[in-house]
């Protein structure tokens, strides 16, 4: 191995590049930028302003923060539902006025003042909600207009009644306590804000109405099609926002015991900036209460800080405008390009050196030398099938295979001309096996392990295993269950090919060449799934050996076959029985003479083997070229290999014409014939085997003669 290759191996195999992509798939990365902004803002102003963190200085700002964050919480809920509420400033001011006038003019108890403030909020929110939810007006303009109306009403009221409020001699201890008091040193408004935020957070993340809001914001039409009452949900978000503004207005009134011309001025642009800076998406569906709160702190610290640093009139608006523009632009660009960035950085190739292999050239004299036998197959279901990854036959000789459309098709013996949809599983049914009771067990790609009873009832057996401690992306979920087989005691052994890619991106796993495949076991007695072996390079076909104590499984991209003992004296041991094959192995199945059939889904090529030794080249390729032009492993020619118990190659079948079976992913021997499936083929092939036992069937080999 040259120095270059050693360095490349160290660089690409020991530095975990793939974690960047995995971390980017996490939703919490959305919050990372606002959180960073929060830290920088607080630290920046904390150092620039003397005594910023002194209790006296904090006390007034935190009360203000309490009120403001309640408003922001309401606005966040509206935005999550796909709307916007610019009238918050007016509702806030009107509610504050309602509270003040209830107490000081009409001399009513404090709780009536609170009720008055909240009622104003509800009424105003209901108006907005009705117009936007039920009349379906544009949220922005409608709330802009209701904002002006509210402001006009408020200005009229203040001019008419402000003097009465000021001349009033009503006092209330409770009122003053709410305004100035603390509980355990925390201002009342902050406690109220915390409680409201907590309720809102729990409601949004863990309750049906909250999910409905997120669903409507995420996709209005889909939410409607799913039976969610879209208009009512939209209506409710504005009412909630109104209530929040009402409570905030009440707290403000208690703090200042009055309402003047400046009350709630510019609150809408502040709250909007806060919600967006925190990372809540315009257009809805993506965001959280916590993000809103982070934004609220950033905006308030910034505006208050600028005032205390002595910047003049207009600075606030300049900064708010700038923050809003930057945040909205970043948010929209991020939302638009996130998946592109993810696509670019997700594939993180590693160094992989394939071993020297023997030739597969016809007549080369090596055991892998391909013949042309597969070109002579008869076709079954030509043009009716798409993607029969695996095929299997039952005791009545009927043929079963999965299709790309998530169906399992049954062809009827003896001529296999008639077919029917045996069952619909969804996903992409891959590996098939019969258990003792005659249930058809299938590894359904992208879904999990399923069982289909003879009367066609589809049951999920398992879709998850135990999560590993070091995983970033949850690897408990089975991403690409590929092949399965049933042990004599009923345990089902199956493979999950990769933790990094979904089933349809299986070829990308080869470009990355990172071993993440697993061998798993599902025990029907306990219903538990355990991970037996991990970190194989695309674990694929599984076959229980004739002895019933061990199994063979294929490691596709490494061109190896391993044997794992699950019973007997060597239980738990694993050994490599075949290595450095010239083809990529797929499913393995029993043969009638006590050996095993194994499919090659493709053949190795010198160019691709070379590229595996150049991870930097593969990385550049995935970043700079469109996917259509990437160098992929060759999966256009394949073959079938027969090997015996010791791993010695007995026979190799090929299709030199490339017409009948360009790729083979599975084959099944049944009564003197071999049935051949391929995941990219549009047919199943049937190849007579003159030397095979004419009455041998897989089911009898597994479960004995009588059934």
């Amino acid at each position, binding site marked *: 191995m040259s120095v270059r290759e050693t360095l490349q191996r160290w660089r690409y195999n020991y530095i975990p590049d793939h974690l960047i992509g995995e971390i980017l798939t996490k939703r919490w990365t959305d919050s990372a930028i606002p959180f960073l902004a929060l830290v920088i803002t607080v630290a920046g102003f904390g150092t620039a302003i003397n005594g910023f963190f002194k209790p006296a200085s904090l006390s007034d700002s935190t009360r203000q923060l309490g009120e403001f964050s309640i408003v922001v919480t309401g606005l966040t809920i509206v935005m999550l539902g*796909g*709307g*916007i509420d610019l009238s918050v400033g007016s509702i806030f001011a009107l509610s504050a006025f309602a509270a003040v006038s209830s107490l000081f003019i009409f001399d009513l108890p404090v709780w009536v003042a609170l009720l008055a403030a909240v009622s104003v909020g509800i009424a105003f929110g209901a108006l907005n909600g009705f*117009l936007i939810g039920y*009349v*379906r*007006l*544009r*949220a*922005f*303009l*409608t709330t*802009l*207009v*209701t904002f*002006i*109306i509210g*402001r*006009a*009403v408020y*200005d*009229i009221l203040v*001019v008419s009644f402000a003097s009465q409020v000021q001349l009033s001699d009503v006092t209330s201890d409770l009122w003053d306590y709410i305004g100035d008091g603390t509980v355990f040193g925390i201002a009342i408004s902050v406690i109220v804000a915390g409680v409201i935020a907590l309720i809102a957070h729990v409601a949004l993340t863990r309750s049906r109405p909250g999910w409905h809001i997120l669903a409507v914001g995420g*996709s209005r*039409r889909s939410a409607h099609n799913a039976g969610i009452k879209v208009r009512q949900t939209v209506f409710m978000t504005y009412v909630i926002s109104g209530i929040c503004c009402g409570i905030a207005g009440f707290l403000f009134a208690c703090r200042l015991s009055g309402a003047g011309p400046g009350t709630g001025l510019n609150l809408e*642009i502040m709250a*909007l900036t806060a919600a*967006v800076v925190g990372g809540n*998406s*315009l*257009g809805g569906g993506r965001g959280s209460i916590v993000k809103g709160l982070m934004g609220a702190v950033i905006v308030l610290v910034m505006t208050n800080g600028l005032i205390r640093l002595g*910047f*003049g*009139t*207009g*600075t*606030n*608006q*300049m*900064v*708010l*405008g*700038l923050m*809003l*523009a930057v945040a*909205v*632009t970043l948010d*929209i*660009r991020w939302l*638009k390009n996130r998946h592109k960035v993810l696509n670019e950085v997700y594939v993180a190739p590693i160094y992989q050196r394939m071993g020297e292999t023997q030739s597969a050239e016809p007549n080369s004299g090596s055991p892998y030398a391909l013949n042309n036998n597969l070109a002579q197959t008869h076709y079954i279901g030509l043009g009716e099938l798409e993607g029969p990854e695996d095929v299997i036959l039952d005791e009545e000789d009927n043929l079963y295979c999965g299709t790309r459309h998530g169906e399992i098709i049954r062809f009827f013996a003896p001529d296999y001309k008639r077919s029917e949809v045996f069952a619909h599983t969804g996903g992409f049914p891959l590996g098939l096996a019969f258990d003792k009771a005659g249930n058809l067990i299938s590894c359904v790609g992208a879904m999990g392990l399923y069982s289909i009873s003879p009367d066609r009832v589809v049951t999920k057996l398992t879709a998850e295993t135990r999560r590993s401690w070091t995983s970033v992306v949850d690897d408990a979920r089975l991403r690409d269950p590929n092949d399965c087989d049933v042990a004599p005691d009923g345990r089902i052994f199956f493979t999950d090919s990769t933790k990094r890619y979904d089933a349809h991106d299986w070829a990308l796993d080869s470009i990355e060449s990172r071993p993440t495949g697993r061998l798993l076991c599902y025990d029907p007695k306990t219903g538990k799934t355990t991970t037996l072996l991990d970190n194989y390079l695309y674990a694929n076909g599984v076959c229980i050996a004739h002895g019933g104590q061990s199994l063979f499984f294929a490691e596709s991209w490494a061109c190896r076959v391993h044997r794992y003992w699950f019973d007997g004296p060597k239980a738990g041991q694993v050994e490599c029985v075949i290595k450095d094959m010239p083809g990529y192995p797929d499913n393995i199945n029993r043969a009638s003479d006590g050996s095993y059939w194994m499919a090659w889904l493709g053949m190795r090529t010198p160019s691709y083997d070379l590229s595996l030794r150049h991870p930097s080249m593969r990385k550049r390729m995935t970043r700079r070229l469109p996917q259509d032009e990437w160098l992929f492993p060759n999966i256009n020619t394949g073959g079938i290999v027969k090997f015996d118990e010791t791993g010695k190659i007995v026979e190799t079948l090929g299709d030199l014409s490339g017409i009948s079976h360009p790729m083979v992913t599975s084959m099944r021997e049944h009564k003197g014939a071999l049935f051949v499936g391929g995941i990219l083929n549009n047919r199943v092939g049937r190849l007579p085997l003159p030397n095979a036992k004419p009455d041998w069937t897989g089911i009898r080999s597994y479960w004995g003669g009588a059934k």
Partner: protein
Amino acid sequence: MTIRSVFSRLDQERIVLAIAVLVFIIASVTLNGFLTAANLVNIVRSVSVLGILAVGMAIVIIGRGIDLSAVAIMAMSVAWYLQMLGDGTSQAMALVITLAAVLAIGLANGFLVAYADVPPIFVTLASGAFVFGFVRSQLITQDAVPVPPQHWIELLGKTRWLGIPIEVFLFTAIVFVAFLFLRFTKWGRYVYYAGDNPMAARNLGIPVRPMLLLRYVISAFIAFTAGILTASSLLSINTRVVNSTLLYDIVLVAVIGGIGLSGGKGGMRNVIVGALLIGIMLNAMTILDIPNLYQNLIKSTILLVAIIIDGVLNPRDEQTAQQGDI
């Protein structure tokens, strides 16, 4: 003619025109001093600045956008211009700098809308706040900036032709030019196509994004012109106008005249009809001595009714509406 066909011929523009005529007749009969030549000139004069601003807004709205920064650009560009003149910058220099700044803001608006795909409402809300805040805090010293004595702006304000103030003619001229642009030039027709269905327009090969830039630049320059006229009649520019309801009056003129906010509809006729109705109403309310605060309430209520009617008559097209288009 059946009743049904009468109603089917009633689009918003005709309704508004009918209401304007009705209000005009009622005001003429009931209000003293309404139907005089001086007052009528007054009406047109009072709406000319509003109308000019509405022309810019109309062009943007027809292209399925909105420009909430118009008033900020109008007030702050002129305020800075006057401040520079007051500080002794040469005439030509001050004008060039101001025009460059106006162009820059228009381009920035257009760029964010066209190339960053940010909804125009947010872009212009943010840019309006920024323009106001930046000019107010960094460039000028007081809320109101006076016009220097004997400056051409002052002379402009005193110009009369046939006894009618010059801004009326300017309003007419701008409306006429905008009409020619929208109706008879290739790029003017593109505004409609892009507003009606941006994706289809783009597929046709229309340069949708550069066109967006152009519209916001036009809007910014029209706002600057309106600001100069305001300064010429008041002999100063008060930057507090940014926080007033003027912006909503502009939207009101456009929407009430029948220019659908969903884009692709309307023209200069609608601006004239909307401006006349608003002018007549404002004038009547002033003659009736309704306080400014109540006028605001009445205007905003009318605007609400107008957008409700607009929403019912021009329901949003869910097929071409984008996510985040709120």
